[in-house]
């Protein structure tokens, strides 16, 4: 045990490994910040690249890229309103308004520090309670995933801005877009109109880049001659006092991140959105309303998506079950290096576990260092004149959409969604619920059908199953509570109690 634990400090003391983690984290931040370039892609390219290396060296680089990449997505979300990755969507809701107010530096500083806190909590849970958490995550049945997805759908309520009806419309549009392609369970064609290009569905990253990036650029065109906001650069590193102020919230949102991250089948994107909703629910009197630059709205998703990194490693290391797409590829890498990731890894090679925990911790520290340096230069981006900025956003969007699958079709989709997003924004529809719908569509579709098939297609039996399993019951009650708490009935009830 002690011998194995000593592996924790190997990446810290070996200069070569230290450098590799630093290099990985640094490049991860930039890979993550560019929409369309994903951590998954970077790590899978690294497998061939690091093939002849020692396994420790390869792992250092991959873990660094993973940690840095998840954080990096927030950078473009705050500065340009284009989330670098789906897990940074929620960051843009309040991060971008902050940048528009001239507080980009502070927003980046806060999101970096909070990513560090979230990342650290995720790693701590991995180190202390990995076997327990993975057994818990395994216990999620199809009906539980279904309830979780319904819980996610209810987030439309907090993402829809002024009009709930418009939010529900946008969310339904997202669910519909997510249904396009071959049926995941039976391979029947759905909404494909006989076109093979539609078999794989509509790339939701392309939709995201279009609806956020291009739509934003088009909106900006309306204000081309307005001068950009001057950025205040008084404070970048948040004070200890404000970190302490957000600590209770970040502990809660990090727990959401760890658990959603540890579930095979859900990842940082859903975790960040749920955390955002949670923050909105528990923050009684935000200094600034949510959606207009509330600090809480930045803290919640950033802690959750970085906590999800540690979470995703939990089932991977203990059972060889990937918590998300990146850990699935890291499993492949371990195979290539002659290791046997699976339920025996923790028993046969406990040193590997502590080595990965050590790498993650180190990468988290580097993320904080690299994240807080150079912020001044980055905030200059927002000060650029719009005539320079708009073409830049468009170019970044096109490159990003192409990079997802090397497909020009995705670029057309992206542009189409951009125009759609522009008109939606113009008429007061939020684009957030659309992306939420696309993300959750497959999850809810597959798991509802698996759940009902498992109960021999009997609805009463499914309900019985939900009411008799403690886990399902808790999720079910959460769904009911969140639904009821958003109805006018509840508001009246609360008002009467106050009076």
């Amino acid at each position, binding site marked *: 045990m002690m011998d194995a634990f000593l592996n924790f400090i190997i990446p810290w003391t070996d200069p070569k490994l230290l450098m590799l983690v630093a290099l990985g984290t640094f490049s991860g931040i930039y890979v993550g910040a560019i929409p369309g370039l994903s951590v998954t892609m970077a790590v899978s390219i690294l497998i061939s690249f690091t093939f002849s290396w020692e396994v420790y060296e390869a792992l250092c680089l991959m873990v660094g890229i993973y940690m840095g990449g998840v954080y990096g997505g927030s950078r473009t979300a705050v500065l340009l309103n284009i989330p670098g990755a789906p897990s940074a969507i929620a960051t843009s809701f309040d991060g971008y308004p902050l940048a528009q107010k001239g507080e980009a530096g502070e927003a980046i500083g806060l999101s970096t520090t909070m990513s560090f806190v979230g990342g650290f909590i995720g790693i701590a849970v991995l180190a202390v309670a990995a076997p327990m958490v993975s057994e818990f995550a395994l216990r999620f049945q199809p009906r539980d995933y279904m309830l979780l997805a319904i819980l996610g759908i209810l987030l439309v309520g907090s993402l829809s801005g002024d009009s709930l009806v418009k939010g529900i419309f946008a969310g339904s549009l997202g669910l519909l877009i997510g249904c396009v392609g071959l049926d995941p369970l*039976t*391979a029947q064609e759905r909404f494909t109109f006989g076109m093979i290009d539609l078999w794989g569905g509509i790339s939701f990253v392309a939709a995201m880049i279009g609806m956020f990036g291009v739509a934003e650029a088009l909106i900006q065109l309306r204000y081309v001659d307005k001068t950009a906001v001057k950025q205040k650069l008084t404070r970048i590193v948040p004070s200890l006092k404000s970190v302490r102020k957000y600590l209770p919230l970040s502990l809660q949102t990090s727990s959401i991140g760890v658990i959603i991250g540890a579930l095979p089948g859900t990842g940082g994107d859903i975790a960040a959105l749920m955390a955002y909703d949670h923050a909105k629910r528990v923050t009684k009197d935000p200094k600034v309303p949510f959606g207009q630059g509330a600090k809480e709205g930045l803290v919640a998703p950033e802690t959750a998506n970085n906590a999800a990194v540690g979470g995703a490693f939990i089932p991977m290391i203990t059972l060889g*079950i990937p918590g998300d797409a990146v850990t699935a590829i890291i499993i492949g890498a371990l195979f290539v290096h002659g290791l046997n990731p699976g339920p*025996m890894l923790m028993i046969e090679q406990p040193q590997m576990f502590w080595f990965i925990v050590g790498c993650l911790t180190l990468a988290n520290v580097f993320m904080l260092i690299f994240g807080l340096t150079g912020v001044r230069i980055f905030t200059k981006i927002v000060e650029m004149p719009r005539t320079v900025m708009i073409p830049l956003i468009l170019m970044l969007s096109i490159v990003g959409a192409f990079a997802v699958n090397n497909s020009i079709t995705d670029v057309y989709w992206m542009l189409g969604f951009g125009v759609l997003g522009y008109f939606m924004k113009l008429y007061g529809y939020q684009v957030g619920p659309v992306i939420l719908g696309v993300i959750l569509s497959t999850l809810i579709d597959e798991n509802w059908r698996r759940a009902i098939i498992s109960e*021999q297609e009997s609805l009463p039996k499914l309900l019985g199953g939900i009411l008799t399993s403690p886990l399902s019951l808790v999720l079910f009650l959460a769904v009911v509570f969140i639904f009821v708490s958003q109805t006018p009935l509840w508001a009246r009830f609360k008002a009467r109690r106050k009076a």
Partner: protein
Amino acid sequence: MTRKILGAAVAAVLTATPVLADFPAKDMQGIIMWGAGGGTDVIMRAVTPHAEKAMGAKVVMQNMSGGVGAISVKYTYAQKADGYTLLMGAENPQLYKVMGLGDVDYADFIPISMLARGVPVIVAQSDAPFDNFREMVDYIEANPKTVKFGSTGPGGLPSVVNAMLGSQVNLDVTTVPYNGDGPAMTALQGGAIDVFPVVIGAALDHINAGRMKAIAVVDTEANPALPGVQPIVEDYAEYATYLPWGPFFGIWVKKDTPEEAVTTLQAAYADALDAPEFQAFLDQRGFTPMNIAGDEAQEYLDRWQSVSSWLVYESGLAKHSPEKFDIPRP
């Protein structure tokens, strides 16, 4: 005059150098038929680095799962036949025709290398109330519809094994579909399904760790990787007519790819297969190395298609009759 001679000389040099002599001139793209972390994915990622070394070029691999692999097949088929797009797949396309998943299958591709094949094993939850195949059949008979079998979609390995099992005994079970053997085995460990037929390599570790138990090996003899697990023919000799049957993994390029490219690729992957690390990997995961290409591979593919197509057709799973596509009876 001198100019003309010069021109002729240049032309001669140009035509004398076969255009593809230096294949590969750029990086290649490898399309993996199933998702990251699954059986196909792991094999392809383990073998390809060795082939890259032999060719001196990179193969950028990408997972393109969905539609029981049909999306990756259609995609590769839509690319140029220049040898720069490799299809890294499993057995599934050989059933597309009868399953109604399209007309493109391995007949439209040239086998670069058939890397390995596997033997299916039926695994069950470790606390399932049966320990061998006969007990399982009896239990299912006594409790119709309550036992949940995992599947990976029409034409996936579990669907064929289920068809095979159902051809001899009455299996009244509920089938729950998943997106690959990884997610299905996770569901098995969490209790969402009870039984899952899967290739030995994917389940071996979980069986050894006691997280699931092996009910029977779908083969004519016991497997060295799983000593003590009875072959399915022990209780039901009738299954011998379908066996040996199992999934296989290989690499293909589109038909009409230039000879030079095919030869280079075949040689590179043949070398890669012999790499001791890869052989050890296959051995450890319970896969049988094949290392066949060209006509030999085609023969294997045809036989496999004929056995499996008729099997799924006769069990009522298929949409079309194999006769429609001139697939001969085995």
